[in-house]
């Protein structure tokens, strides 16, 4: 049944820009931005000082580390895995900075290079453990968390020894001074913007699209010639590198002490999940994950201003994780009903009796039993 007229070329995007924006806004990935806006309004209303531009930008600066960690965790989650070793990576980097840089400014760059190398190595090991050893990623990264934590404490004798030289700490704590309106632009904000832009560009690249495909359907990706193990391992490396950067920033404003970065992986996962990224992979936007970090911090700030103690932080995270996971996978298709013949197919009207061979169903309707023979 061919149409005689030439088919129209398929438009690159469905609908106008405005329509697309609107449709995006009601997905969990887009909704988080709306959430951030709503929370921001609520926070400022609770505490008008918050609305002061210099205050706001410093808030962004403080949240930058978590947002960067969330971006890293995003890569792993969108590929269908988990990285629970982030806290240990941060602790490692922080301790390395404290011990190896000491007060010698000249050491800053070489040590940073070493930190990046170590971060990449940890990510590589996580990736290889998950893909080649076939150990579930949460076990690999938990094991890494334990092993790394132990190793680091062993090598440093159990205590981080003091803060590195001030110049290094400036990365996390300082900024460009004497800027109009906002007074200061923290370096961490600049770093965050750079990471976010790079992260978004990466997702638009061939690698990023392959990563999404791997998370969505690893088997189809393998049949398409993707090197699944390498794609996932790269994601783990990006995650550990993100944790490294977060660690560098944290040294700046939190200083060096054992509990820096503790629980960061769960915070990052919460941020990612809040950003509408589906656990299990294949869906979600990297910038939404970063936005999720802001949503989380704003929510916690709101609670603080409402006199809820910051010790409830974990409870808030736990609740968010459960609710977001339960809702999110379904929420992505809300309001976008498939066209009438989505999962099945349309049999053209038989033009002649001879053509009336019934088309076979594309897939047996999923039977919950193990009896699907696939063909009948």
């Amino acid at each position, binding site marked *: 049944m061919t149409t005689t007229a030439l088919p129209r070329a398929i438009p690159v995007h469905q609908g106008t820009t405005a329509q697309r924006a609107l449709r995006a806004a009601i997905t969990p990935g887009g909704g988080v931005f709306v959430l951030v806006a709503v929370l921001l309004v609520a926070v400022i209303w609770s505490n008008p000082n918050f609305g002061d531009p210099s205050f706001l930008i410093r808030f962004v600066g403080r949240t930058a580390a978590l947002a960067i960690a969330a971006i890293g965790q995003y890569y792993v989650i969108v590929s269908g895995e988990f990285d629970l070793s982030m806290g240990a990576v941060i602790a490692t980097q922080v301790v390395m900075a404290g011990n190896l840089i000491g007060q010698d400014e000249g050491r800053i760059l070489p040590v940073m290079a070493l930190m990046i190398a170590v971060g990449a190595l940890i990510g590589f090991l996580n990736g290889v*453990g998950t893909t080649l*050893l*076939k*150990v*579930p990623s*949460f*076990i*690999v990264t*938990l*094991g*890494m*968390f*334990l*092993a*790394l*934590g*132990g*190793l*680091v*404490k*062993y090598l440093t004798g*159990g205590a981080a020894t003091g803060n590195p030289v001030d110049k290094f700490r400036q990365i996390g704590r300082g900024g460009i001074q004497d800027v109009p309106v906002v007074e200061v632009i923290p370096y961490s904000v600049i770093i965050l913007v750079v990471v976010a832009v790079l992260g978004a560009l990466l997702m638009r690249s061939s690698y990023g699209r392959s990563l999404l495909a791997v998370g969505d359907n690893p*088997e189809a990706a*393998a*049949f398409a010639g993707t090197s699944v193990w390498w794609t996932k391992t790269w994601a783990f490396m990006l995650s550990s590198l993100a944790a490294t950067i977060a660690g560098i920033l944290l040294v700046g404003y939190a200083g060096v002490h054992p509990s820096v970065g503790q629980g960061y992986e*769960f915070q990052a996962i919460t941020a990612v999940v809040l950003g509408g990224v589906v*656990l299990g992979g294949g869906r979600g936007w990297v910038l939404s994950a970063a936005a999720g970090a802001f949503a989380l911090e704003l929510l916690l700030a709101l609670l603080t201003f409402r006199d809820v*103690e910051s*010790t*409830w*932080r*974990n*409870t*808030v*995270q*736990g*609740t968010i*994780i*459960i609710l977001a*996971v*339960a809702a999110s996978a379904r929420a992505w298709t809300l309001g976008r009903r498939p066209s009438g013949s989505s999962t099945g197919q349309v049999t053209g009207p038989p033009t002649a009796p001879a053509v009336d061979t019934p088309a076979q169903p594309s897939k047996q309707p999923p039977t*919950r*039993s*193990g*009896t*699907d*023979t*696939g063909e009948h």
Partner: protein
Amino acid sequence: MSAVTTAPRTKGARRNRRRTAPLTSTQLVYVVLGLIVVVSALLTLTKDRNFFSQGNLWTIFTAMTVLGFIAIGQTLVILAGSLDLSVPYVASLTTLVAGGIMAGSDANVIRGVLTALAVAALIGLASGLIVTLLDVHGFIATLGVGLIISGYLASNYQGSTGQAAEDLKFFGVTGLGVMPYVAIFMFVAAGLVWAALRWTRWGHHLYAVGGNRAVARMSGVRTAYPVITAHVLCAVFAALAGLTLLSRTGIGSPTIGSQGRYDLFSIAAVVLGGTLLAGGKGSIVGTIGGVAIFAVLDNVMGVMGINPFLKDFVRGLIIVLAVAVYARRSIVRRPARFGHASALGSVLKEDA
């Protein structure tokens, strides 16, 4: 978790098929345990100490008790195809609840214990319902529940509070021969759970649901029930672990559970004991073996004066390797028609 059948033996090998695998996973664990004990005994000897002395064995059994309780519960949950990461927080909470009610007085012992167990059971119920009703995997559900409890603990308890009753403390430190009473209690509990798994319909259905939910459902098994009860029991066992800790330390503590990292170590013991992370296969006996391995390793590393931080490194490594080894053993292969199937190649093929 698949109904695909495993590789059939080719035509010639029919007769000896029944015992092709030389050792079951459980037997393997105990062989490894035996080897570790022998090596440990020798190493201990080099430090002029006796591995099998009353004091040392007592220490080992004491170390086994808390992890043992938690690992028993974790076994049930993993067998059902789920997971429980909230156990450390349940244990901590238990010490506080029981300690708070007892407040050092023997009169409140029973009330303290029962309340703690009841609270734990409710938490387990919540986890189980989140898993079955909201269709969220156990890993996420219990991660969330654990975090929720953790926040509650951080907000309401600044430090240790509450006090164990003297009776409880006494129970905690006395025993029979080389074994503390609490350890005996743990072994008895393990035995009861083992019996239940073997001889009750509930146990059989637990294995079925964890092994292949679809197959279980085809046979009319109610698939939510074993999962929920597994979570409830897991939390209750975590509570028993908490009570043991309380009996030993004498006070309730909001961080004692997470300090002990019982979530990771209980999963490790369970996996080391031969239980499949995916569910449907495993045994309590194996788990106890895994717990014993960790306890003995800890002991010998302590005797040898190995830096405690390095212990963590070793443990992390063991966990990953153990899971890797067991994962290999359970690869399901499509039946080959000519020659025999290669294990690695079947990774890409997962069709009906």
